[in-house]
Structure formats: C-alpha cells, structure tokens
C-alpha cells in the first residue's frame, strides 16, 4: 500500500510530466510552423514540389547591372551562377546591399522565376559572407 506522502508525490510528478509534455508539443508545433527554409535559385528550379506562397529564404549574389528602381519597388536578379531568380522588394535595403555582393531575401515565391521579398538581409561586414552563400559559391566553382 502506498503511503499518503508517496501518493501525493506520484500525483505531483504525474502533473509535471503532463505539463512538460504539453509545453513540449506546443513549442515544437509552433517551431515547425515558423521555420524558414533556405533555397538557392537552382534548388527552386529543380525542386518539383516547392511550395509557392509559403515563406522562405532565397540567397545568392546580386547580379551585376540588374538593379532597377522605380517609385514603388526595387527589383534585382539573384544568381548562384547556374540559375537566376528575379526578386522584387518594397522597402529599405541594408547598407551592405550592392551589386556583386551576397544577399539573402526573405519572402514568398510567386512562381519559379519570381520572388516577392519582405525583408532583405545583408547585415554582414564587408569581409564577411553568409555561410549559406559561401557554400553555394564553393560548390558552383567546382
């Protein structure tokens, strides 16, 4: 027979277990909902079941002489030297955004050639390159 003390301890542990399980599920669910996958233009071209309209990140180099600015938007081409994608963005670009430099855009795909960004990241210093882009360039150079 369990003593009263042991009984209350079991109930207490049981509650803690339930609460931790619920919070863990809650955290993992919201995590899966909010992660942004990173793709290169080539991956977008090749991947058949890439979801159009879901938030994601695209990265590569800003193609030379591709930046066009009008009243509303700034448009530019991002390349990984194999494939390209056109990116349209309404907003302020970071100070390190420039032609021929690495960039990561966050937003949604309109179709496989057109990406609408809601955030541009290039917040690295001039010597630094985002690890994702470094990897692409190394692979494509081979």
């Amino acid at each position, binding site marked *: 027979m369990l003593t009263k003390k042991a009984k209350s301890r079991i109930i207490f542990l049981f509650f803690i277990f339930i609460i931790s399980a619920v919070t863990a599920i809650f955290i993992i669910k919201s995590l899966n909902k909010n992660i942004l996958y*990173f793709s290169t233009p080539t991956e977008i071209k090749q991947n058949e079941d890439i979801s159009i309209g879901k938030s994601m990140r695209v990265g590569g180099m800003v193609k030379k002489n591709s930046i066009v*600015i009008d009243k509303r938007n700034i448009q530019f081409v991002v390349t990984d030297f194999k494939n390209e994608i056109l990116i349209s963005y309404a907003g302020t670009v970071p100070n390190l955004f420039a032609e021929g430099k690495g960039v990561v855009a966050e937003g949604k795909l309109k179709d496989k050639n057109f990406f609408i960004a809601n955030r541009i990241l290039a*917040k690295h210093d001039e010597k630094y390159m985002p690890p994702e882009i470094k990897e692409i360039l190394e692979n494509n150079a081979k």
Partner: protein
Amino acid sequence: MLSNIGSILILSVLSLSLLIIYNSYLDLKNNNQLIKKSIYSLSLFQITFTILSFFTLIVGFIYSDFSIINVYENSHSEKPLFYKIAGSWGNHEGSLLLWINILVLFSYLFLIFNHKHNKKFRLYTLIFQNFLILGFIIFLLINSNPFSSIYPVPLDGLGLNPILQDPALAIHPPLLYIGFVGCSIYFSAAIASMLSEYSGKQFALAIKSWVQISWVFQTLGITVGSIWAYYELGWGGFWFWDPVENASLLPWFAISALMHSVMVLEKRNTLYEWVIILCLLTFILSVTGTFLVRSGILNSVHTFANDPSRGLYILLFLSLMVFTSLIIFFKKRKKEIYSFKSSSKETFILANNWFMVFFLATVLIGTIYPIFLDVITGAKVSVGPPFYNTVIIPLVIPFLLLMTFGPQSSWIKSKKKTLYKTFYILLGAFIINSTLFYFFGSFGFYSNLILITATFLILHSVIDAKKSIKNRKTFEYPRIISHLGFGMLVFFIGINHHHSIETDFNLKVGETKILYGYELFFENITIEPNKNYKSIIGDFKITDLKKNYTQYLNPEIRVYTNPETLTYEAAIKSKISSDLYLTMSNVTRSDFYNIKFQNKPFMIWIWISAFTIALGGFVQLILKKNEK
C-alpha cells in the same frame, strides 16, 4: 615595444594565477582560520598586472601603434580619439582581454569583500576562479593574442567597422561583459560551496550582492545594445530575435531566476541544490553565448570572426566546465527536505523560476534548432520572430499576474487577506484598457489581456510603493521598482507593437508624398565632408496634416573611407508620446532614394521601463550598503 610589454604582462598574470592556485591549495590544509597574507598580495599583483595589460592595449590604440596586428586591423590614424579607445574592446582579441580583466577583478573583489565567510569556501572559490582565468588566458595566448606583432610595420590601419563607431556601442560591451563575466564568480563560489560543504544560508549571503551586480549590468547591457540596434541598424525595431540577442537573453533568464530563488535560500535555507544549478547554468550559458557568437556558427549582426579554431577551443573549455561541475554536483549533492505550503512566497518564487526556465528553453530551442537541423539533415533553416511571439506571448499573461500576487504572500504560509483591494485595482486596469481600446481602435484578444494584466501590475506596484513609503519598509523598494519597470515594459511594447506606422517607398528630390495623415516633402540633398567620412544629408519637411505641425528631419548616408563602407544614419525625432523615424538609402546612384518612414508610439518609454527594471537592482545594492 608595446607588444612585448603586453605579452610579458599577460604571461605574468598567467604565472600569478598558477601561484595563487598552488598557494591556496597549500593553505587549505592549514587549520588556521585566516587566509595567508601572501595570497592577498599575489591577488593584488594579479589584478594590477591585468589592468596594466589592458591599458597597454589602449595606449597602443591611442598612439596608433600599427606594429600590433590588432591595432592595424581595427584602427586607423584618422579615427576620432574616442573610437580609438573604444576600438580596443570592439574586436575579438581586445574583448577577450576585457573578459579576463573582469574575471580577475571579480576574483579579487570577492576575496577582499567576503572576509566574514568560511576560509575553505573562499579558498576554493579563489582556486576555481583562477582555473577559469587560466583557461581564458591560454585561449588568448594560443589563438587570440591582442599583442601579436606584425613586421614590416604597416603605414596605416584598416579601420573600425563604421557601424561600431557609436557611443552606445562603445559602452555596450563593457556593460554586458561585467554582467556576463561577473557570473563567473558565483559559478566558482557554487563549486566551492559544494566542495567545502558550506551551509546554504551562508552561501546565499555570500553570493547575493554579486548576483545583483551582474544582473543590473546584464540588464543595462542588453538595453543599450537594443538602443543601438534601434537607431544604427536602420530597421526601426528594437528587438529582432536575432541569434546574438537571444544568446544575451539566455543567461539573463537564468540569472533572473537565480536572483529570486537566492532569496528563498537566504530566508528559508531551502532550495540549495536549485540555486547551485542556476549559478552553474548562468555562467555556462554566458560562455555558450560567447561560443555561438564567436565561432561564426550563427549568422547575425555581430560578425566578430568566423574562425572555427576559436569556436573549437571555447567548445572544449565549455565541455570541460560542464563536466567538472556536473561531476562535483552529483558527488556532493545533499538530500534536502522541502516543506512549504502551496500558497507561500516560496511557491510563487518557484513559479517565477518555472516561467524563467520556460522562456529560457523556448529561446534556446529557437536559437540552436537551425544548427541541429543543418547537421542532421543538411537543410538550411532560420526561425522567424513569429515563433517566439506565439510561444512567449500567451505565457506573459499568467506571468504578469503572478508577479502581482506573488509579493503579497508571506513566507512559509500566507494568511487569507481581503480580496477587495485587488478587485478594485483589477477594475481600474479594465477601465484603463477600455479607454485605450477606444482611442487606439482594434487590437486582438491576447493584446487586451496583456494590456490589462500589465496595467494591473503597474497600478498594484504604485499602490504598494505608496504603502511601503508610508510604513518605511525600505526593503520592498527594489522589488516594487523592478516589477513596476517590467509591467511598464510589457505595456509600452504592447502599444508600440500594435500602433506603429511603417512604410517604405522611393522618392526623388523635390517630390512630395502623403501617407497616414503626414505630408513628406523631400527638399534637398547636401554633401558634407567630415573627418573620416563624407555625409550625404537629406532635408525632409514633414507636416502632420491633422495638427498642422511641421518638423524637419535629416537622415544621412555616410560614406566612410577607412574601411570603405556605407552606413545609413536614421533621423529620429523623439517625443514623449512617439518617435518619428526616417532613413534614406540609395543603391545604384539612381535619382530615386529609398525612404523608410515610421511613427512609433512610446519608444522612449520602452527604454525608460528597461532602465527602471535595472534601477530596482541598483537600489537594492545601495540599501544593502547602508545596512552595514
């Protein structure tokens, strides 16, 4: 020349640490109740040499001694003096030297200020603190020596990254470092207390002030960093859930939990093990944060270095720390009997700890999940801010309620008090919220609840403050101030979040744009040369059409020469009720300038609230000093 002096000083600090460890070890076996005089003098030499080595580096920066690689890489002869000095800790090597300075400083202060405590406990603390010092000095010497020299001596330096040339960022690292590295002393003290089998209450008394000091500095450091990000990064936000910001928040959660539970240990002599775990965790998380930032694993605004060997060393040292402390913990743990009723103050403080641990776990998972996924599946992901918002925001509501009710309860067991007062305050909070709702218009269900609970906490704190001033209960001030600050912080962030205006558009000189009741006229562009940069200044006339009130804002584009970099300086008009925020940028030298215009209500109040939180801890330190 300076490079040699610096290296000699560092080497002597290294040997002094070894001597201190050896002498303290010998002294442990002495039955004498007093610590040997020689240990005091060794420590005094150690702190003097450490500070001198740091001064040597600063002198190197002031006189632009480019024979030191570190100065060459991070300074330039034409840089303003203030940033030459600040540049000495604005880079990886220099900041590591600052880190060691703080380790040694806390080691020395802990030794001389805790003379009332048990000798064994103090000696063990000293030994472990010196092991930490040794670890970091070896790291400094083998791959991050700020005094490495270069030959032939370059004519001029490469310059400091312009976004770091900013007063807020000059004081941000020292504040944060005192906060993070200050944790080292109670990491050592926790291990010492286990080894010397020191009583829980005495241990709590010994570390309490140190916990408060590092907590105050961490809070200030994080706030100053956030202010810097607000006006320098040009996004107009103050918190981005950037991995580096998260790394600074992790130890803050742990230390906030510790600050509360150490009171339980002091007053009731219980929760000893939990306090020990938190002491160990706080410093381990500080070093983890350093590892994540310095190794280049995470991608963020801080770009110290992406040198894997640095990461490897910190990782090795970190694992050594974790394993040692775990082994000692499991060998030396004592059985404890917990006995307190569910409505006592201890329970509420434990509830605070539960929440802190939950927040900590959330931020930790969000920060390191991308690393794991990359290692396991190769997929590159990032965790967006919505994750933190959806997980953390719902829990802020019960957290705020507990912050209000918790302090009302008494130790061991609470008496049932009349609930009328609380009810009236809650009613007041409802009324304030409804008024806000009426003026500002719609906000969601959660926001309503958050604003009500935050207002509830604010009102309750104000009433508590009145009562404790009347009854001269000074010991309650710190808690009231910090809780008030937290309530205000949540309140103002809530309003700011929902009622900010933010737009981006492109404009040519001479054009006008009308938006959200503001008229924006881009008058002119002027170019102005400065000492180490050239600025392109935009003249904007902004008219509030409702109030017919005109103001001028001048955002800048700065072209720095050494190193050649562009920065965008935001023009911010701060008023008590709101901030007007304007940045302009130009990418391809086209006629169109890219403009970001924002109106952010109560920005100043967010900073004031954060400083109020820190003020609480500061007041506690002053009160304690007066007690003695």
